[in-house]
């Protein structure tokens, strides 16, 4: 059942294509032109054809010093999520963008290793061949056993939709920063623990060594030292040095500026720093000889007592030991908390970008209507965490671009377009940054500094001689300058005052390359850099290796659409090269980079299915290159079809995933889902509203049905809007509940609490019920009790409207206004429940604004001068309602009722136990029949 055949031409979902092309071809003039950008796998509704996963997910990867980039976990933690998408390969790519994010080691002029508390770097990158775009958040965690004490990790939000990543960059960045901060806090704690253990070990070792030396001294009184003794002495000295180094590290890790975390969501476990500052004369004896000092005990009370071990002179390094898992690195509590946060993020950003954007705009607008929004909005929307308020002028200022883009929706993954759009969205970032700076009160961080540093970074790249650690430090420092108040760390930043040279050289343009990693942006501060600089950014990634190869920077500008194909393999190789060189197990790289045969389908059958990671070797690559173009340019449709046909497994898995997707949505709309993925997939911001979303959709659908089915829908809705309790009477619980659900969307809330809707009542009603509930589903029973119930109904008939679901009659006051017909037109073209729900919401919001005007207009309720009579005010009020607000007949009562609710809400004391009052009119009721 395809309700909208015109849409089919635009869909690229496999089964529809089949149908479309098996039919005898239409005459040229009748055929709908193919969607022009189909070859890029981007029509407005369907997924990118190249993508191998259906839903967005979060990937956490590590650049392991032993095995290189490796995926650690995905959220949701489900094999279905990533589908055939090669996580290994993608980890490799995203990790290759970032370098070591922290500089640890012996900076010149300083004898001890220094920890740098570096901000995370945030990168957007895309892989159009894989159909994957990712927001990548790099962070480093400290590990005593790791090389340079750091373990680089990244968290990536992977989506098929580039626009989504781009437009949600700010939000993603904020959310991921929180998660990252959580991880890092846990890590600092764990690291401090680890350091302490190590210190104890070292101290123990020193004692042992010292004893041994003493024994040797005693045994040997000849006045000269044996080589053995000298060795021991050296060993002792190195242990001493190590102790000092570790103590210094411990001091550093504890001196982390916690105040930065004040505004974040979780409660950082933060006592170390304060305690240690109180105890500045931190000398080795205090920790070693007195391990149970009060500060330690309550902090690490959970820690089992630790027995020191002897440390061998040469400690094992990289290869012969197992590295700590992420969980071990970050303390279980923080790890699980981070996972929760990431799950939350995944839920928040689920669904189509237009949906997310609309939602955000909607929420922002609703926040502005703080006085009226309680009437028809759910509480869940209004009670967002303050964190969500982050959404600010950034999106708002961009609204136009977003809108136009949504309208045009020429969905070529044009990098240029996206870059521009990104730029436009980043341009407002500095404002935001400033806000953050103000919040965190870090006066040192100013934009010029960030600017300089970025320039430094570029300069450094040109030179190609700076170590990766350092360049990363700069890369990620747009906000990190002041993290350490120690001037030592600042001193380690090289200063390059004249970036002019770079500017001239680094001019290059982004180009579309089918399968190269497209670094679309690096960090928010990019906007501070002139356009041409920005362009040179992406190439910077490769430059190190170029420098090694002696090719220099000129290679990357030469990439342009005409020679993409030749360059493809090249660039790919180049991409991989830095990985090789940077990886400590470079020699094993071929093994690592070979795609795992099990994970992908047989390469030969898989013509054009882009599930195979590119090979590092040029000759292989050539062959694949052709296939890629075949696949992605859908001119040769049969080829594309063939690939689907050839791979039933693939098809079925897709199908399966789609079905699973549809399980979440309503069954009725499943059939036409191909044409409407856009509105189908969106799901909701968080679990509570997930339910609400479904509820809304259901309510909308039921309401549509009600409107079409019952000719007297208008007076019924009017009853609800004017605050007259509507009772749905019926024998069948399901039917009554359905009607109640349908009508509930028209019920104004009386307070900030739940809607005054009671779905099912079986006992006789009394006056209190009408005071409390505005929509009641009532059971009709054939028994004395039932008669009682009907008696009570007839007794209270002046307060209620009664909809008899069994006989399909309605008894309620007459309605002759114009408002409800707009709200509930039985000939409406709206077909979908959620759309109708929005339509209703829209009109109700208009209504609310009218009510607001009416309620808050001073002169409508109070005399202008003292001599004015009550009658003339009343007259003015009526005039306002009728002439200014354009209300007809009974519509006046609706607005009056809503205004009354607004007034009540406003004047009500926060804690008031007073029951809501029941307002009513003495108006005659009429009986409506079908």
């Amino acid at each position, binding site marked *: 059942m395809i309700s909208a055949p015109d849409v089919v031409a635009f869909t690229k979902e496999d089964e529809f294509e089949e149908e479309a092309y098996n039919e005898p071809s239409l005459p040229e003039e009748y055929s709908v032109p193919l969607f022009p950008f189909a070859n890029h796998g981007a029509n407005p509704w369907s997924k990118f054809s190249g993508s191998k996963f259906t839903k967005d997910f979060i990937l956490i990867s590590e650049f392991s010093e032993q095995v290189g980039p490796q995926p650690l976990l995905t959220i949701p933690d489900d094999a279905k999520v990533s589908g055939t998408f090669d996580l290994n390969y993608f980890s490799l790519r995203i990790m290759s963008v970032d370098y070591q994010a922290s500089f640890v080691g012996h900076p010149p002029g300083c004898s001890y290793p220094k920890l740098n508390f570096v901000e995370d770097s945030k990168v957007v990158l895309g892989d159009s061949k894989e159909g994957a775009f990712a927001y990548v958040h790099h962070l480093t965690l400290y590990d005593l056993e790791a090389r340079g004490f750091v373990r680089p990790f990244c968290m990536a939000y992977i989506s098929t939709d580039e626009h989504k990543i781009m437009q949600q960059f700010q939000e993603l960045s904020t959310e991921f920063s929180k998660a990252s901060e959580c991880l890092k806090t846990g890590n600092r704690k764990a690291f401090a623990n680890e350091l302490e253990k190590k210190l104890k070990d070292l101290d123990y070792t020193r004692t042992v060594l010292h004893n041994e030396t003493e024994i040797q001294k005693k045994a040997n009184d000849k006045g000269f030292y044996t080589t053995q003794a000298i060795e021991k002495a050296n060993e002792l000295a190195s242990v001493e040095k190590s102790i000092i180094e570790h103590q210094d590290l411990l001091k550093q890790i504890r001196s982390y500026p916690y105040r930065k975390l004040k505004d974040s969501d979780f409660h950082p476990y933060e006592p170390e720093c304060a305690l240690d500052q109180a105890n500045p004369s931190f000398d080795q004896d205090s920790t070693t000889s007195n391990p149970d000092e009060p500060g330690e005990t309550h902090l690490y009370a959970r820690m089992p007592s630790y027995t020191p071990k002897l440390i061998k002179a040469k400690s094992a390094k990289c290869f012969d030991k197992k590295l700590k898992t992420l969980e071990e690195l970050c303390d279980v509590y923080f790890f699980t908390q981070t996972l929760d946060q990431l799950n939350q993020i995944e839920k928040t950003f689920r669904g189509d970008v237009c949906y997310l954007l609309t939602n955000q705009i909607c929420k922002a607008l609703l926040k502005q209507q*703080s*006085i009226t929004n309680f009437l028809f909005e759910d509480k869940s929307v209004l009670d967002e965490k303050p964190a969500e308020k982050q959404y600010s002028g950034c999106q708002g200022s961009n609204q136009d671009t977003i809108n136009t883009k949504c309208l045009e929706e020429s969905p070529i993954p044009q990098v240029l377009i996206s870059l521009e759009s990104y730029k436009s969205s980043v341009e407002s970032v500095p404002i935001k940054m400033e806000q953050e700076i103000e919040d965190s009160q870090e006066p040192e961080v100013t934009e010029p500094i960030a600017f300089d540093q970025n320039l430094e970074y570029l300069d450094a790249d040109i030179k190609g001689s700076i170590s990766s650690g350092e360049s990363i430090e700069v890369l990620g420092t747009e906000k990190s300058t002041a993290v350490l108040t120690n001037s030592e760390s600042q001193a380690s930043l090289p200063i390059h005052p004249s970036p002019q040279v770079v500017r001239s050289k680094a001019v290059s343009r982004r180009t579309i390359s089918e399968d190269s990693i497209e670094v679309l942006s690096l960090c928010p501060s990019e906007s501070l850099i002139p356009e041409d600089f920005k362009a040179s950014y992406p190439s910077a990634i490769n430059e190190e290796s170029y420098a090694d190869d002696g090719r220099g920077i000129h290679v990357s500008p030469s990439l342009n659409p005409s020679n993409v194909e030749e360059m493809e393999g090249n660039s790919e190789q180049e991409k991989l090269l830095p990985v090789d060189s940077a990886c400590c197990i470079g020699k094993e790289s071929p093994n690592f980079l070979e795609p795992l045969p099990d994970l992908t389908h047989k390469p030969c059958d898989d013509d054009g299915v882009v599930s195979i990671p590119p090979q590092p070797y040029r000759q292989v690559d050539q062959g694949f290159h052709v296939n890629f173009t075949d696949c992605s340019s859908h001119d040769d449709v049969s080829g594309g079809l063939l690939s689907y046909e050839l791979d039933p497994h693939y098809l079925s898995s897709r199908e399966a995933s789609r079905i699973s997707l549809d399980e979440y949505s309503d069954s009725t709309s499943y059939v036409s889902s191909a044409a409407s993925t856009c509105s189908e997939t969106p799901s909701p911001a968080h679990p509570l509203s997930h339910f609400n979303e479904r509820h809304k959709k259901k309510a909308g659908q039921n309401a549509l049905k009600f409107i079409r089915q019952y000719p007297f829908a208008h007076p019924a809705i009017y009853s609800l809007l004017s605050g007259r309790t509507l009772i749905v*009477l019926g024998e069948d619980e399901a039917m009554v509940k359905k009607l109640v659900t349908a009508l509930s969307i028209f019920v104004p809330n009386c307070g900030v609490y739940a809607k005054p809707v009671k779905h099912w009542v079986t006992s006789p009603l*009394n*006056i*209190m019920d009408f*005071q409390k509930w505005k929509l009641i589903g009532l059971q*009709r029973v*054939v028994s*004395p009790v*039932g*008669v009682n119930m*009907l*008696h*009570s*109904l*007839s*007794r*209270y*008939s*002046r307060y209620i409207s*009664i909809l*008899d679901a*069994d*006989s399909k*009659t309605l*008894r309620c006051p007459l309605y002759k206004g114009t408002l409800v017909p707009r709200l509930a037109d039985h000939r409406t073209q709206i077909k979908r429940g959620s759309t109708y729900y929005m339509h209703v919401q829209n009109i109700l919001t208009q209504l609310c604004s009218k009510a607001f005007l009416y*309620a*808050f207009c*001073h002169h409508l*309720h*109070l005399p202008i001068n003292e001599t004015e009579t*009550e009658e003339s005010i009343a007259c003015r009020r009526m005039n306002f309602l009728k002439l200014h607000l354009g209300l007809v007949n009974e519509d006046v009562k609706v607005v*009056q009722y809503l205004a*009354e609710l607004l*007034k*009540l809400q*406003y*004047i009500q004391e926060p804690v008031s136990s*007073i*029951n809501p*009052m*029941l*307002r*009513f*009119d*003495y*108006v*005659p*009721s009429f*009986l409506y029949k079908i």
Partner: protein
Amino acid sequence: MLRWLMGGGREPQGLSEKSSVQSLGEEQIQNPYTELLVLKGHHDIVRFLVQIDDCRFASAGDDGIVFLWNAQTGEKLFELHGHTHKITAIAAFPSSGACEEKNHLILTASADRTVIVWDCNSGRQVQKVSCFHSTVKCLTVLQRLDVWLSGGSDLCVWNRKLDLLCKTSHLTDADISALVELPKNCVAAAVGKELIIFRLVVSTEGSEGWDVLEVKRLADHQDNILSLVSVNDLTFVTGSHVGELIVWDGLDWISQVCECNTWDPSFHTVTQQEIKLSQNQHEVSIQHLTSDAECVFAAVGKGIYVYNLQMKRVIACQRTAHDSIVLHIAKLPNRQLISCSEDGSVRIWELREKQQLPAESVPTGFLNMWGFGRANKQASQTAKKMQESTTSYSLELIGDLIGHSSAVQMFLYFSELGLVTCSADHLIILWKDGERESRLRSLTLFQKLEQNDDLQLRF
């Protein structure tokens, strides 16, 4: 309405009973009460309401709890616990004249044979008197003398400090069921069928003390006196269970007029088929009386009668004003009358004059009149006038309030603030003028806006 509800294939079970009661459509233009507030608190029948001051009232009932409410907001001010049994009488004891600060007291008598004095401002129990031999059934405050009386099996006189000033001897035949203050320091007490006049005299011993003397026993009533009301200084009225209404002279306690059987439908020529012949006494018992300067309004059985004191006749009536016995009536200043009944409804009536032939509209019926010498000139003149001008009156139903699901025991009219009704369904309902409330809310809103200076501040 009901038939429609019952329709759709359902059996109408015994609902054919048609009500003869005048009913009003759903449109009630003159009914100002368009907003209601249900006050919950009691968990048994609420029988008494008493006004404390302009905006407060107390409620009491069979659960022994006394609640103080704010009549404007419906806020529950205090919950007074102290009685262990149901409350039998309640009276407000207003502060005496211009003395010190306003301390409003209320007195409550209960079936646990105690009387408690409560302070309305603090919600505290001021004092408890528990030296009664029987349940106190009525309480009256004599403001002039700054004393209060309690009536049960005897009559006690108390001062503000709760000192027992004096008491009568034990009344053997029945308990005092009602008390009313008369001029010259007299009180009339209804004791069974008898009406006993007591007089308070300054005691011989001290300046503070009073003595109470029984002055006269009036046994004109054939049955128990149910209601006793003072019209003005010169007149008071009693009503009995069998429907005798006697107008008494307040000074010499002589029965001026005895009206009886007016309301007995068996005497009427126009027999009303609806009312079954098996008359029970309730049909004519005078449940409640109220009066303004010129008329006495009697709740007789299911009906309401307006008796004009000057014309000495019933000028208007509604024989079946309610479906069930009328329990309480009150006259409003604007020629309106409110009645409440066991059927759970409250009705608002208007006394309308109409120019009509007297013979038909006015239920002349069979008037038993006894003139006791007081038939002066004026009265006869008025009577003549009445004969000439054909002014007649009728009680028109202008509105009804439906909210209670059980008998409405009593109501309290708070002029502007609205109407408070209490009922056997444990609820108290505050009926308000919706438009006025709306205006008030607007006023509050703008005041609040001014205070807050900004819309957003509160949110």
